[in-house]
């Protein structure tokens, strides 16, 4: 009997199965660790301690989490409209330009809380702008968005480097980066939030953009499940032909969905650019856009799921850095492997365990 259409309760589909997929991904990662001659249990311990063991470690974990929430939301919003946006990386990169321009022009005149809303808009607009062309190409010319967004990642990188090397660089400085923003262009750290839990943030760059990320989670939830636009996006994402029937304009919906997606990716830049390094640097995104894919897949494209998945990857990134610090044999790229495995098992192989689950579930139900 085919099992594909047998319904399963939500807690299995959205809880147990992702967990199972995750466990398999980790088991295989453990195998790799063991293969290169290290103790996986020991590694796991170091990873957890390094990411959750101290106040500043938690701060770093949440710092990474913040970035991943943004990019995860970015991928998820596009996904709901049936679009696979692999371009969050590039959109975040260009979004950084928007944030930086705002910070550079306002930081001398106003305090951070005045700069912030403009920076949020600036980052979002620039990120959205970078998503616009692939969106337009998909909507009007039918160019596969997966390919065009990949191309735009490369083009964006070239553009940003050009700007940083030739335009934004501080004359006489070597590193292609802007000047350091004054406090008026920086997002303050969330010491007080940590203090509420009796933790000391220390030097970790955990900052206000985390709160912006949480607000975005809520807004995305409203957008997808409570708004007319979200309804249209989901219709289009599940059944393009039904969307045509319902009079949902394809081009407009695709473009808007991608603009929102790009905007969310762009906002990710607030975190590293204004919350941490206080300047725009080359390659500051550092793969967070790609992590967003894994986060969105694992979080089943739901904001709540995305928060958890982002936290998991935050732990991986911070703990992984610490781990490679303690076990030099395990390089930080181990995280990339884990990321790939999570995408594989939570994404491409998400239904691998479904038939088994159906059988077990039916046996239980009968009993």
């Amino acid at each position, binding site marked *: *009997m085919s099992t594909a259409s047998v319904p399963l309760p939500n807690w299995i589909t959205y809880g147990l199965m992702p967990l199972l997929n995750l466990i398999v991904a980790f088991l295989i990662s453990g195998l790799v660790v063991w293969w290169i001659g290290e103790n996986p249990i020991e590694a796991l311990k170091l990873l957890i301690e390094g990411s959750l063991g101290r106040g500043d470690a938690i701060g770093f974990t949440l710092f990474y989490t913040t970035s991943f929430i943004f990019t995860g939301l970015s991928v998820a919003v596009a996904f709901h409209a049936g679009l696979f946006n692999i371009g969050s990386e590039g959109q975040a990169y260009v979004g950084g330009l928007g944030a930086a321009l705002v910070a550079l022009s306002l930081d001398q005149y106003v305090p951070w809380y005045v700069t912030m809303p403009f920076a949020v808009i600036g980052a979002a607009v620039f990120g959205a702008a970078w998503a616009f062309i692939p969106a337009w190409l998909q909507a009007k010319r039918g160019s596969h968005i997966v390919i065009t967004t990949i191309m735009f990642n490369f083009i964006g990188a070239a553009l940003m480097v050009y700007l940083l090397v030739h335009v934004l660089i501080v004359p006489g400085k070597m590193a292609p980066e802007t000047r350091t923003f004054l406090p008026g262009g920086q997002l303050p750290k969330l010491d007080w939030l940590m203090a509420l839990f009796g933790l000391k943030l220390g030097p970790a760059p955990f900052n206000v953009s985390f709160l912006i990320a949480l607000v975005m989670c809520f807004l995305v939830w409203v957008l997808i499940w409570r708004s007319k636009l979200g309804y249209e996006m989901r219709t289009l994402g*599940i*059944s393009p032909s039904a969307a045509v029937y319902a009079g949902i304009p394809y081009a407009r919906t695709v473009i808007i969905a991608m603009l929102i997606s790009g905007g969310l990716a762009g906002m990710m830049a607030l975190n590293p650019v204004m919350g941490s390094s206080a300047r725009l640097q080359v390659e500051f995104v550092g793969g967070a856009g790609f992590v967003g894919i894994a986060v969105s897949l694992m979080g089943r494209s739901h904001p709540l799921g995305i928060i958890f998945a982002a936290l998991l990857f935050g732990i991986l990134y911070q703990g992984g850095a610490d781990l490679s610090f303690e076990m030099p044999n395990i390089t930080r790229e181990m995280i990339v492997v884990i990321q790939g495995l999570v995408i594989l098992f939570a994404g491409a192989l998400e239904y691998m365990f479904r038939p088994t689950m159906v059988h077990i579930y039916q046996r239980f139900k009968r009993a």
Partner: protein
Amino acid sequence: MSQHPAIELIGIDKSFGAVHANKNINLSVAKGTIHGIIGENGAGKSTLMSILYGFYQADRGEIRVDGQSVAIKDSQAAIGHGIGMVHQHFMLVENFSVLENIMLGAEGGQLLAKGRSGARAELKRLEDEYGLEVDPDAIIEDLPVGTQQRVEILKALYRGADILILDEPTGVLTPAEADHLFKVLKVLRDQGKTVILITHKLREIMAITDDVSVMRRGEMVATRKTAETTVEELAELMVGRRVLLRVEKGEPKVGKVLLSVRNLTVKDSRGVVMVDDVSFDVREGEIVGIAGVAGNGQSELLEAIAGIRKPASGEIQLDGKPIADADPARLRELGLAHIPEDRHHMGLVLKFEEYENAVLGYHRDKRYGSGALLDLNAIRADAAEKIEKYDIRPPNPRLKTANFSGGNQQKIVVAREIERDPKALIIGQPTRGVDIGAIEFIHRRIVEMRDAGKAILLVSVELDEIRSLSDRILVMFAGKVVGEKGADASEQTLGLMMAGIAA
């Protein structure tokens, strides 16, 4: 000839998830006969035959070919046992030539060159023997459906099939093409081949089969010698009770023209003209039916009126306003409701919960939330109301739409479109794959709409449905309206027109 039946199915059982498509089926088909299988949409005919052909695996049961119990684990095995099948949805590679399609799976060696000349010769022989004429180098997508079907039959014969299964072969054929097909089938039978013919057209069963089996809701309910049964008996067996094919309705009270189509030409995505300079009017209080063999432009006509497909030229007016350029959302605002032909791909989003589908296309309406947000309470209340009124089962607006049966899914669509109180209603295949109870319900609703003074355009490939609902009947052939008849037109007259022979 041995006395074993060609095919015996014993206790075949098959479920698709929650759908129990075949329940403990037994069937025996004698050698050298044409055996009909009839049943309503969704009765499980295709599933049963696909199991015999190895396309699906039965959950339980036994298959015997020529008295031998066999395991048919894939189509390969079926072909090996001399079984060939012409599927309801053709299994052809559209951008391949006829020859390539014939050869696929029977290439005669690792290289194509040698097999190709052999295939050409064999094709010529089959053509001479059965009158199945076809250009081997033509590309499938350029061929008319009738010819495509011929290719499917040739495919089976080329593989040396002794038992030929045809799944609803006449649905896409004109009566004349169907007659030709039947001639071929008789030749095949006379040469000792066994034919299993699936259809739900009783006329065809009576015309050419030797035996007939009836399926209903996944069960095999009876087998008869065709000579010893009647149309009435078969119809009753099929639906499980006496059927009343005529819909009760009074004289139409016709008003002004609401929907007007002038010189409409529509092309499909390849640029082929599908609707060719068509003009007609639909007035208040009447049902205009469009009859025709599937694929003669009816679908494109509907889509053009519904704003889904841009017309190449011509004009459409709704209540005096030009709407040829309007999109579906705008058309709904103007009062045009549309029950699409294909509820799975158009009318519904199967992954949505029921209440979400209850507003599909109307979700921008103020009553479902002012501003940008949806008012879920209003939507769910609205859905619950329709569920009650239309007796949609199970009565749960939070259930995933895919988990409703076909009839209930169709009711969701009908409820949504009718309850908006539109001025005009365009309807495609309103009862395709819907059980008999739901058919009656839906038909009654449509007539009620007419009596309420709506203009209704109805497209259906079921001639019976067209004849029993319509006040006027337009017949389409090759993209043109070839004639108009009253509701009392005979089946023969309409059939000839559908074949493009008479006007």
